[in-house]
């Protein structure tokens, strides 16, 4: 019995609501029982995304800052390319990384395909442009403020980059956290290069895709709740850590 167009499908609505309720219940029980598999994939999610975050930040933050202070011929092109890369579809990144690290690909000898390392590499490629771009935006404003002073003080390039990065660390933290958000919620690329192998490369997002495929929406939604909770906890933790360091405006 399908509803007429324009008429609210009450049965469907009730059904959907109960699915969501079941999902919340599933999340609750997963957490209460501290399910071993759940703990494992949650930790792996964290490990993969945090590793990707550290590497991508180490590349993206200085690069974004460097772009903000350096005037060179193709700077505009570089910025345009970086902003375009920010929108890279993860599946495409996954496919390319897969082909590079497949046994028949150029980096096949390392045997990294279907390991967390491959997932990290894919995520680094996905989030580095995002982190660099956001870092560039905020560093550009700071550089406009600091430009005359730092030139007058006869600073070198590295000193400028370090000064900007230190004084703009709050903004850079925001850039990194945006990258983390994208990494932890990403599924397309890591599904391809990780393979969603149980006890090896399964993470929260690929587990959600799997459970959805099995039609187990409640469990999928429960895992989704855990994922969201994890993202919030990590954000709060990083903010807390950075705040205790110094209680200032920046």
């Amino acid at each position, binding site marked *: 019995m*399908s509803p007429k167009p324009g008429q609210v499908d009450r049965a469907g609505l009730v059904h959907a609501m109960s699915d969501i309720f079941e999902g919340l219940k599933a999340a609750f029980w997963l957490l209460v029982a501290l399910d071993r598999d759940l703990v494992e994939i949650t930790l792996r999610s964290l*490990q993969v995304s945090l*590793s990707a975050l*550290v*590497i991508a930040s*180490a*590349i993206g933050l*200085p690069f974004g800052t460097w772009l903000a202070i350096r005037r060179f011929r193709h700077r505009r092109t570089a910025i345009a390319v970086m902003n375009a890369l920010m929108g890279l579809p993860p599946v495409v990144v996954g496919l390319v990384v897969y082909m590079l690290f*497949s*046994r*028949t*690909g150029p980096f*096949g000898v390392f*045997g*990294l*395909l*279907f*390991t*967390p*390392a*491959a997932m*990290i590499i894919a995520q680094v490629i996905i989030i580095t442009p995002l982190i660099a771009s956001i870092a560039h935006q905020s560093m550009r404003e700071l550089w406009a403020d600091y430009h005359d002073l730092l030139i007058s003080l006869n600073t070198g390039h590295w000193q400028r980059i370090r000064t900007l990065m230190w004084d703009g660390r709050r903004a850079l933290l925001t850039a990194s956290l945006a990258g983390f958000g994208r990494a932890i919620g990403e599924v397309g690329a890591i599904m391809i290069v990780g*393979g*969603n*192998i*149980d*006890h*090896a490369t399964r993470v929260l997002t690929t587990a959600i895709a*799997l459970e*959805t*495929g*099995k*039609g*187990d*929406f*409640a469990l999928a939604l429960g895992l989704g709740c855990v994922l969201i909770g994890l993202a919030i906890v990590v954000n709060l933790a990083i903010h807390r850590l950075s705040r205790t360091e110094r209680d200032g405006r920046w």
Partner: protein
Amino acid sequence: MMRIVLSAILLVFAWGSASRAEQMKLAVTTSFHNSGLADILLPAILRDTGLDVQLLVVGTGQALRLGRAGDVDAILVHSRADEVEFVARGYGTYRREIMYNDFVFVGPASDPAAIGAAKNATQVMHALALAKLPFVSRGDDSGTHKKELSLWRAAGLDHTEFGAWYRAVGAGMGAALNTGSAMNAYLLSDRASWQNFRNKGDLAILSAGDPALINQYAYIPVNPDLHGHIKANRAARLEIWLTSDSAKTLINDYKISGMTMFTFNARSAD
């Protein structure tokens, strides 16, 4: 900063390559995985042989690609023509039939296309083409998808000429079932995926049993002559186990809601 990066990279790589004892990679199809049989077999394999089999759950097409590239040590798929070609081209050593289950037609319980009355699969296909009611096709080059296409062909129908009622979703069995359930559509599913599916909604099995709907699974070790790193020895040990009596018992006894799912039929290698 540099030091942090370096140690992070080192850590990651050490961790990535830290292999636990006796791992091997096996590409399997979504339909096999969705059946839940793997959850029964893998622990038994680990216990009996010490092999930690890592499953890559993909479509048949991708499984074959993975095998061809040497990214997995063996594949377990269900698309005979492709398997034969795979072996003929030398990507795999040989194919060994392990077990079968069957495909079923599911659709709205009220069966508006009346496929329940059909005597065989060909009649079902005609009934569907005549009714022009929503039909969800996997459309992902998987074993199930290929089976569906061969059924249309056998019935003398050309699926490329179907109207909007024929929806190729390009997704795995689970996603296709979700779509079918939401649209109250007809689809072809392997019995195990269907039985394990939790979001059946208004759908039910409407037709099954035609021998043309048999779904044969075969195991193919990837050719170690093409890829030096292939763990041929482990693949061989897995094969011995898969064709053993303990596998036979586990496979034949596997039931979902009291219904037998697979029939073990391993014979000597072709």
